[in-house]
């Protein structure tokens, strides 16, 4: 049984300008201890997918269809209290900007002890002990002393470690990480990545790593799901998808990454912009920017698969045309 199973999830926003289909039929599974990289550009719906899972989609947004099964039971439409008991204890979230996710006026100790005691009836001393232990786990030196510090006394990388420690306090079964290393230096980024990877292996924790950076996901994730305009357009085991991408969008993404090219060769950005979620083109949403598009793309592309690798495209690219 997968830890998390998302089935045809649809999260729409009912704004005054119309209905914005931010997530429009997304399905994936995350097994116990598995790391899923959810990749896509801004506005592709990857963050909203994460917020839908943890039940924090703010109005006017709403889950309008599909189901989310967490450890075999549906968590869509659960009453607030039941969901709250799950949040932070079974499912935790790490956010993008560590400058913003810690409360600036509360000490780390206050924030950690409070989180422990929100879900477990333990003494302050015990909660404090857990906080120290978890801070040590994420590689914060002298955790006992740093506990009394305030967020602004930490560097960006340390702050993100604190945020990760807070998410780990209850040893959750699933962590949703929403671009948590985007705001950090590359060196710090790789330290945190390897630490998170080993922690999730050690604890058997499932991880959804939301990112726009294929490079980050390549080194971290067991499998990849590429999102475009509210849908998953290609997914599969990381090596498989990155070595043999078939969807033109995935190929375009990979060609936009400098590291994948020989020196001096110009980058090949994907032309155009992602379609407005208010007004998506009929059929394949990528066809207006796609180098392989033909008339047939105006109709809905079916899902095709070979083993664990699946894609939604009428024109899967042969290995020869790949970067």
């Amino acid at each position: 049984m997968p830890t998390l199973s998302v089935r045809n999830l649809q999260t729409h926003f009912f704004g005054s300008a119309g209905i914005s289909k931010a997530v429009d039929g997304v399905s994936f599974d995350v097994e116990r201890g598995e790391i899923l990289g959810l990749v896509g550009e801004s506005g592709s719906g990857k963050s909203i997918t994460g917020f839908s899972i943890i039940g924090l989609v703010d109005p006017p947004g709403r889950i309008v269809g599909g189901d989310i099964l967490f450890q075999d039971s549906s968590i869509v439409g659960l009453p607030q209290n039941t969901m709250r008991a799950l949040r932070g204890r079974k499912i935790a979230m790490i956010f993008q900007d560590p400058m913003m996710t810690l409360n600036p006026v509360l000490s780390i100790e206050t924030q950690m002890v409070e989180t422990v005691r929100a879900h477990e009836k333990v003494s302050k001393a015990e909660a404090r002990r857990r906080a120290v232990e978890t801070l040590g786990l994420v590689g914060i030196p002298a955790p006992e002393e740093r506990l009394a510090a305030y967020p602004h006394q930490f560097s960006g990388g340390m702050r993100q470690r604190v945020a990760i420690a807070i998410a780990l306090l209850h040893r959750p079964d699933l962590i949703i990480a929403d671009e948590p290393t985007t705001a950090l230096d590359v060196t710090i980024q790789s330290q945190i990545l390897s630490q998170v990877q080993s922690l999730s292996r050690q604890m058997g924790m499932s991880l959804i790593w939301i990112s726009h950076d294929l490079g980050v996901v390549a080194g971290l994730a067991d499998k990849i799901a590429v999102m475009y305009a509210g849908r998953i357009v290609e997914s599969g085991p990381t090596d498989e998808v990155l070595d043999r991408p078939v969807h033109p969008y995935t190929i375009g993404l990979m060609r936009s990454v400098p590291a994948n090219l020989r020196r001096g060769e110009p980058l090949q950005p994907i032309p155009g912009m992602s379609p407005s979620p208010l007004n998506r083109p009929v059929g394949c949403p990528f066809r207006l920017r796609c180098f392989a598009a033909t008339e047939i793309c105006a109709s809905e592309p079916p899902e095709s698969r070979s083993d664990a690798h699946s894609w939604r495209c009428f024109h899967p690219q042969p290995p020869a045309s790949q970067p």
Partner: protein
Amino acid sequence: MGASRFKLPSPDGFLGRSARGILSSRKATIAALVCVLLLLAATFGPLLAQQNPYDLSAINLFDARLPPMSPNSNGGIYLLGTDAQGRDMLSAMIYGLRTSLMVGLFAGLVALALGTALGLVAGYYGGWIDALMMRLVDLMLGFPAILVALMLLALLGQGVSKVILALVLVQWAQFARAVRGSALAERNKEYIEAAGSLGLSDVRIIFGHLLPNCLPPIIVIGTLQVASAIAAEATLSFLGIGLPVTEPSLGLLIANGYQSLLSGEYWMSVYPGLLLLITVFSINLVGDRLREVLNPRLAER
């Protein structure tokens, strides 16, 4: 730079910033000192005053309407003269200050607590709760405060608790609006979302996370509102509808002396008036300075 440095409380905390901000301005330092002195005088008033102006046996009617510096029949002097009943003005003013500060502080604090709680809830939940509360606030602020207080007191009658109730009713809306504004700004910051993702309850998020981040404006408005509560109470008492004669405040002293003002016995009205002015002015100076230091946009200067 040892690790112990991190045990210090936040140097950017608003309490530290407030204290440093006040001390760095001479005007504000003097005003704060005056406030402390007035508070001490009010607290230890009965020990300082040379007579209890409301103990009828201590008052000598033959000493009525004496100008300042007149000798006392008991051997002392009436520094600020006496009033129409022969009370020592200075003693009456100290007792009056006691009442005024007590009413002002108490009304200010209750209004602060009520307005802050409602403002936070409105700002956090938004939607119809917010709309409802803010229309109520608009309604309250649409009427002149003194008019509302006058109407209330006309209905309720006199008394310390009734004046406080009236002042709270006209002041909570100010707090609610200001706090709601900053709660609205803070509410959309990621740390609130993060607190929600940790499964903290709404009550915890509102009072444990939102409130501490909204404190600077609350402190500033709180200070200014205490001053305005004192002034409003004086106004009500001056109009004869505030505190009863048995609990005289500065406003009532001014009103009593006012009748003699035209006959040249200025001290009965002018000295309590000056004391009221100094009180309100000092509190306002401190409040303004706090606003300068705690408001990030003004603090950059």
